[in-house]
C-alpha cells in the first residue's frame, strides 16, 4: 500500500471532520471494550494465562532459529513445502510462481494482514491473476479499493448504507429493486456472490495465527468460515505467515488461544479454530492437493535482540487499538500504514523506518490502556518512547519541538530558576482558566488548544505542596 504515514497530521485532521467515519468509529468504543472485559472477568485464570503466553513467546523467540528448523522438518514430513522469504518482494515472487504452476486465473483469500503487508493483491492483479477476498469486511473494502482500517475488523470505518451502495454498484446482475436495508440481507448477498468463487479458484491463500513446531501445523482463527472454504476447496493451499507466528507445541498454542478471542471479540473461542497439516491424505475425499507455507522475514530478524524484540510477541488481536483514545478519534486509515493503532505505532517504524513513520509513536497520549489490555503483555508505551528517543537522536523532529525541549531543559537544569518561573507562570495560567477552570486558547499553544481544552492549574504547585508537607512532618 501507499504509506501515507508522513501525512499523519493531515490524515488525522481529515478524519476528525469526516462525519460518517466518526459515526462508524463509535462502534469500536461501544462494541469491543465491554465484550473483552466481560470475557476476561469470566475466566479467573486470565491474568495468569497472560503471564504464561508472554513466557511462551519469549522462549520461542530466544530459540527461533531452532524452532524454525523443527517446524520446517514437520511440514516437509507431512508432505508440505516451506518457502523462506526475506522480503515482501521475495514472498510475492514465490506466491506468483505457485499460482502460475497451477494455472490459476483467480485465487481466493482468507483474511490476512501479512498479505496486506506484502501488497499481494495489487501484485497478483498486475500479473493477470484475480485475487478474491472472501472475509466479509475484506470483500467490502476490496470493492471500494481501500485497505483495512483495523486488523480484525477491516471495514469498521464504514456504515451499513455505504456497504449497501457498494453492493448495488458492483452486483449489477442482481435485481435493482431488492431490499438491502438490513445487515442480514447484505451478509446473504455476499455469501451468495462469494460461494461460487471458492469452487472456481485453484489456489486458496490464508494467513496463520500460529505455526506449531511440534506438528508442522498452521492455525487460522475465524468466525465466518471463509478461510476454511478458501483452504479446503482450492487445489492448492498457500499459507503466508511471518516468522514470529511460531509456537513450540499444541499445548503452548492452547494457552494463547484462551487469550486471543477473549481479547479480540470477547468470545471464549472464535467459531472456527482450524489446524491444517500438509496436503490432503491419499484417502481424503476433500482438501487441497498441495500445501505451501511462505515464511516471511521482512524486517523481523532485525528486531530480535533489540528493545523492539518484545513486539514480536504480538498475536494481532486488536485489543490495543480497540482501547486506544487516538484510534477512537481518527480511525485506522489516518495512520497511513498497514498496521494501525498502538501495535502499528511500534511495528511500522521497524518495518518502514522511523524517518517515514516518526509521527506514529508520537500519536499517543501514553495513557497506558494498550499495555493494560495486551494479552501478551507487550510494553507498547515504553517502545513508543524508544522510537521517540531514536527520532530525537536522528534529529527528525520539527525544529519547534527541539527548541521547545531545549527551552524547557534550560529551566529544568536550574532548579531555583525553574521554581521561580513556575511560581510566576502558574497563577497566570490559572487566571486564563476563568470561571470554567478550562483554558481553550493559549498564545503559542494553538496546536494544543485547537482540539482540546487544558485544565487550569488549581491550588499550589507540586513542589510547593511537597515543601509544605516536608516542613509539617519535620515539625512534628
Amino acid at each position, binding site marked *: 500500500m501507499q504509506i501515507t504515514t508522513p501525512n499523519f497530521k493531515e490524515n488525522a485532521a481529515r478524519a476528525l471532520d469526516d462525519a460518517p467515519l466518526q459515526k462508524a468509529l463509535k462502534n469500536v468504543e461501544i462494541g469491543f471494550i465491554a465484550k473483552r472485559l466481560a470475557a476476561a472477568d469470566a475466566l479467573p485464570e486470565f491474568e495468569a494465562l497472560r503471564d504464561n503466553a508472554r513466557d511462551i513467546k519469549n522462549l520461542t523467540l530466544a530459540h527461533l532459529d531452532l524452532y524454525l528448523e523443527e517446524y520446517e522438518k514437520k511440514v516437509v514430513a507431512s508432505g508440505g513445502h516451506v518457502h523462506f522469504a526475506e522480503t515482501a518482494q521475495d514472498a510475492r515472487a514465490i506466491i506468483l510462481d505457485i499460482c502460475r504452476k497451477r494455472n490459476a486465473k483467480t485465487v481466493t483469500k482468507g483474511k490476512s494482514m501479512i498479505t496486506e503487508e506484502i501488497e499481494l493483491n495489487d501484485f497478483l492483479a498486475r500479473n493477470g491473476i484475480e485475487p478474491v477476498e472472501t472475509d466479509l469486511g475484506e470483500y467490502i473494502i476490496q470493492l471500494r479499493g481501500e485497505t483495512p482500517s483495523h486488523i480484525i475488523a477491516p471495514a469498521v470505518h464504514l456504515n451499513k448504507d455505504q456497504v449497501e451502495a457498494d453492493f448495488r454498484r458492483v452486483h449489477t446482475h442482481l435485481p435493482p429493486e431488492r431490499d438491502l436495508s438490513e445487515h442480514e440481507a447484505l451478509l446473504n448477498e455476499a455469501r451468495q456472490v462469494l460461494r461460487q468463487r471458492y469452487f472456481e479458484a485453484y489456489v486458496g491463500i490464508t494467513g496463520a495465527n500460529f505455526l506449531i513446531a511440534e506438528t508442522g501445523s498452521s492455525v487460522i482463527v475465524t468466525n465466518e468460515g471463509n478461510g476454511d472454504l478458501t483452504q479446503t476447496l482450492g487445489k492448492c493451499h498457500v499459507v503466508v505467515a511471518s516468522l514470529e507466528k511460531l509456537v513450540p507445541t499444541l499445548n503452548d498454542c492452547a494457552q494463547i488461544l484462551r487469550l486471543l478471542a477473549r481479547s479480540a471479540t470477547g*468470545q471464549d473461542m472464535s467459531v472456527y479454530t482450524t489446524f491444517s497439516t500438509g496436503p490432503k491424505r491419499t484417502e481424503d475425499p476433500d482438501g487441497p492437493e498441495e500445501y505451501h507455507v511462505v515464511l516471511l522475514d521482512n524486517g523481523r530478524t532485525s528486531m530480535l535482540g533489540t528493545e523492539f524484540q518484545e513486539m514480536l510477541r504480538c498475536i494481532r488481536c486488536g485489543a490495543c487499538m480497540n482501547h486506544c483514545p487516538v484510534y477512537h478519534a481518527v480511525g485506522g486509515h489516518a495512520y497511513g500504514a498497514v498496521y494501525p493503532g498502538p501495535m502499528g505505532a511500534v511495528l511500522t517504524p521497524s518495518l518502514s523506518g522511523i524517518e517515514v513513520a516518526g509521527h506514529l509513536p508520537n500519536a499517543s497520549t501514553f495513557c497506558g490502556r494498550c499495555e493494560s489490555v495486551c494479552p501478551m503483555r507487550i510494553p507498547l508505551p515504553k517502545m513508543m518512547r524508544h522510537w521517540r528517543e531514536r527520532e530525537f537522536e536522528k534529529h527528525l523532529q520539527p525544529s519547534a519541538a527541539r527548541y521547545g525541549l531545549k527551552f524547557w531543559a534550560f529551566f529544568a537544569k536550574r532548579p531555583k530558576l525553574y521554581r521561580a518561573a513556575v511560581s510566576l507562570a502558574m497563577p497566570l495560567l490559572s487566571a486564563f482558566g476563568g470561571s470554567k477552570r478550562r483554558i481553550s486558547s493559549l498564545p503559542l499553544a494553538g496546536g494544543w488548544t485547537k482540539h482540546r481544552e487544558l485544565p487550569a492549574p488549581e491550588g499550589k504547585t507540586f513542589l510547593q505542596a511537597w515543601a509544605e508537607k516536608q516542613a509539617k512532618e519535620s515539625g512534628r
Partner: protein
Amino acid sequence: MSARDNILGRVRRSLGVSGDDALRRAAVANRLSEATPGLIPARGQLPREERIALFGKYASKYGATIARVAAIEDLPQEVVRYLKSRNLPASIRMGNDPLLQAAGFEREPVLSVLQGASDGTDLAGVSHARGAVAESGTLVLASGPDNPVTINFLPEHHIVAVRADDVGGSLEEAFAGIAATYGKGEMPRTVNFVTGPSRSGDIEQKIIMGAHGPRALHIVIIG
C-alpha cells in the same frame, strides 16, 4: 546462500547465539518431546456430568442447539425430528464414519442419505465429532473419509453427533486425544475446533449468523 540460510543466520546473529549450541538444542528438543500442558482453567477440569452441562451451556451461548439421546440408534430419529422442525427436506450428507454407519439411518425410510464430500448443494450435513471441549462449548472434528471437511462448512445446517464419553474438559484433553489416535506430533490434514454456527460482525459490529459456513449448528450428545 539460500534465503533460508540467510534468515536463520540473521536470527542467530541478532540473538547472539549459535545453531550448534548443544544446550539450546536440548532445550528445544525437550520442550517438543515433553509438550507439557500449561495452566488449565478450573472450569476445564470438571467431573463428567458437570462437564457435559458446561459444554452445553457454552455451545448454546454461541448459538448451537443441543439434544441428548441415550444411544447411537436414537440419532436417525433425532435427525429427522430436527429436519422437520426446520422445514428442511429429508436429506442429509455424511461420510463413512463407523459410528454414523452404525446408527441405522436406513430405518428412517423417508430419509435419503448421500455419502461422501459435499459439493455445496446439500442443505444438511451430519458429522461425528471426535471430541468436545467443555470450557468453551467447542466441537473437535478431524478430517478424513469418515468425516469430510466440506460437510463442516458447505451445508446450511450442520448436525454433529458427539459421544458423551468424548466430551472433554479442556483444549489440552482434545490435543491429547488426537495424539492418542494419530501419534505424538502427528495430525490429520484438518482439525476443526467449532464453537457455534458461522457468523460475521463486519458490518457495524452487529453479529449476524450464517456468514460463509453453516447458518445453524445442532449438536446431538450420545449417551
